């Protein structure tokens, strides 16, 4: 019994002291991502991009001659105290030099990490996060958003839907979104945009995560027979089941999935079955053919490493790490946080496709060299057909009328 007690004590002490045991001449990078819970899939996508960047820097001799050391934190399901705990652990306790995150709390993170000075990169895509930032831009000057807000992404989706060379049989639209901050932000903006354009929003449905039985909603949709159905649910099982149940008796509708097309399981499961679906990825690397040789090399490397094409967020967070590393090199000291933040704000970062520039709200707004990519599933793969803003066709790729639309 005493041996057992000793073993338990020793294990506990190891776990307590483990982080300090690696306190060599390294630069710590905090990575708070969902490692458990319902956001694990998105967390893994982000982790792939962050890991790729950190490994690349380390293989190239490190940053300022020091290797980067990752300190991970499980954000679980982003309860307020967990987000706060992540900030206190990474910035306060582990004294990381920077925090690289993906989704990280939709505004809660701005408050939690804004207490510190370490550069914090996240992919909230949230107007609420921007509103918090605007309360005190000086205090929150270390917060850098890697994607535009849900409102602007929704406007971009709307512009592309209107630009599609698709003849509609009526002006009716059905919008289905989740009941979380992202879903309602996009859903509300889409409703507003369609109404402004004179469309009839025949049905707006807000559903909780976990909805997989679509019978009653699809019955109403079939009765409406809309020209466009927009589904905004960033979770794979819901959108896969919706698509399969829709396809049992499809209406002559363009099926727009917005960001819902991003979870990797959607394409892995549906493959060619999903041909015709359209969706978007903010701060996405357009493909399959990247815009230039440098970007193509990045895509090739990613595919070689992970065996699949880059999913939403991977490239954004990769660029976040690189933007920070670039600023550290320019400042010459990873601990001069305020100078590093100032450098990022003023100079941005030149990445594979061009300039990443943070605006006065410290948000990389869609457009320029980092537009929103709008995709269609063609022959089982995501093909970028438009970039926005401004709305323009991408490369030689063309929109194809979905196979279920019979005119």
């Amino acid at each position, binding site marked *: 019994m005493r041996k057992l007690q000793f073993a338990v004590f020793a294990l506990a002490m190891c*776990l307590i002291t483990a982080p300090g045991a690696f306190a060599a001449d390294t630069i710590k990078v905090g990575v708070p991502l969902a490692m458990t*819970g319902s956001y694990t899939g998105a967390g893994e996508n982000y982790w792939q991009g962050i890991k790729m960047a950190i490994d690349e820097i380390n293989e190239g001799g490190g940053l300022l001659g020091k290797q980067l050391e990752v300190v991970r934190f*499980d954000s679980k*399901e982003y*309860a307020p*105290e967990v987000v*706060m705990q992540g900030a206190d652990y990474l910035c306060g306790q582990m004294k990381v030099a920077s925090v690289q995150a993906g989704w990280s709390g939709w505004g809660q993170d701005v408050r939690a990490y804004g207490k510190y000075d370490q550069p914090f990169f996240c992919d909230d895509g949230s107007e609420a996060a921007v509103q918090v930032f605007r309360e005190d831009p000086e205090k929150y000057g270390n917060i850098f958003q890697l994607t535009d807000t849900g409102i602007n992404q929704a406007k971009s989706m709307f512009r592309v839907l209107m630009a599609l060379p698709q003849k509609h049989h009526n002006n009716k639209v059905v919008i289905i979104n989740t009941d979380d901050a992202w879903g309602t932000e996009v859903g509300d903006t889409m409703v507003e945009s369609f109404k402004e354009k004179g469309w009839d929003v025949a049905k707006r449905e807000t559903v*909780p995560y976990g909805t997989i039985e679509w019978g009653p909603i699809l019955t109403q949709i079939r009765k409406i027979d809309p020209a466009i159905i927009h589904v905004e649910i960033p979770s794979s099982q819901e959108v896969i089941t919706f698509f399969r149940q829709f396809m049992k008796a499809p209406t002559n509708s363009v099926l727009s999935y917005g960001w819902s097309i991003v979870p990797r399981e959607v394409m892995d499961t549906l493959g060619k079955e999903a041909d015709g679906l359209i969706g978007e990825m903010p701060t996405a690397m357009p493909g399959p053919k990247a815009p230039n040789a440098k970007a193509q090399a990045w895509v090739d490397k990613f595919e070689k490493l992970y065996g699949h094409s880059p999913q939403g967020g991977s490239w954004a967070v990769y660029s976040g790490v690189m933007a920070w590393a670039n600023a550290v090199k320019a400042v010459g000291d990873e601990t001069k946080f305020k100078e590093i933040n100032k450098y990022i704000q003023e100079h941005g970062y030149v990445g594979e496709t061009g300039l990443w520039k943070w605006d006065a709200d410290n948000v990389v707004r869609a457009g320029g060299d980092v537009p929103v990519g709008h995709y269609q599933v063609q022959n089982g793969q995501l093909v970028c057909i438009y970039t926005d803003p401004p709305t323009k066709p991408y490369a030689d790729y063309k929109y194809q009328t979905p196979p279920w639309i019979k005119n």
Partner: protein
Amino acid sequence: MSWKRMAAIMAVFYAVVGILPLFVGDMRFVMHILIMCLIWAVVASCWDVIMGFAGIFSFGQVAFFVAGAYCSAMLAYHLHIPPVWTILIAGCFTGVLGVLVGLPCLKLAGPYVALVTFGVHMTLTPLLRGKIGIAMGSGGATGLLTIPPIQLFGWTFSSEHLVPFFYLTFAVTIICSAIILIIIKSFWGTAFLALKDSEEFATSLGVNAFKYKLMVFAITSFITGVIGAFYGHYVGMLSTRMLNLDLFCTLMVMLVVGGIGQFPGAILGAFITVTVNELLAPLGMYRPLIMGALVAALVLLLPEGVIGLIRSIGSMWRQNDPQTIPSS
């Protein structure tokens, strides 16, 4: 367990916890965990009173916690009422809510009470996120991101300054724990236990089941609402993500670890569970797996939780004590 022994365990434990900021006061992360331990200790204790002592399978404790947090935050944020008052109002609100939930539960037996109370938990998310919640000022899906801190005697207590907030939480936790201890060891507590063991027999002795069951709902939901409100003003932001199953399961683990119906086991359970959970955090996806295995092992090896272990050690020590061995 006698109330003196319960009070002694609590006194020793809280005395140790009370001096911890002297050593870790400058470590924000550790201080934050200590504050959360104190908050969860109260919630777990309330759950223990209703489930462990009164034998009512209520699964609504997290819902009362969140309802209290939102009530206080909305009043303070939208109506600018000082948080000291909104916390008390939130307690009263959840107390009334507890009675309303308790009323239908009085006509139901074990698993059905669990279903009704868990139903309350489940309806809270769409209520707060939906149009009704937005109209009430819940912030909808985004939640509330600017909750004012507690102001008391000219002092501001917030997450910016953790040591003062720790001692404020510490005082509130001790008061709540003392109230729970008094209830458990009073006639009310005896009535709860009697109703739990045999409702028919207790009723035949004059114990009013209706009155006491309703009372336990009101008291536990009042205290849970107060500490929930406290949590909201501490963290400064709220979202319905607190209603995810992660927190619910963690609270349940606290009860199992501490020992169900083994007060003050729930307090110890809260501290142990939160600490182990944090120690296992670097293991990522293996954390819930290990936690689950630990709970399964604990249930098999220590069915009465850590309090059962302490009691066993205590009786072993007394047996080995030469002074307690009767001379022949």
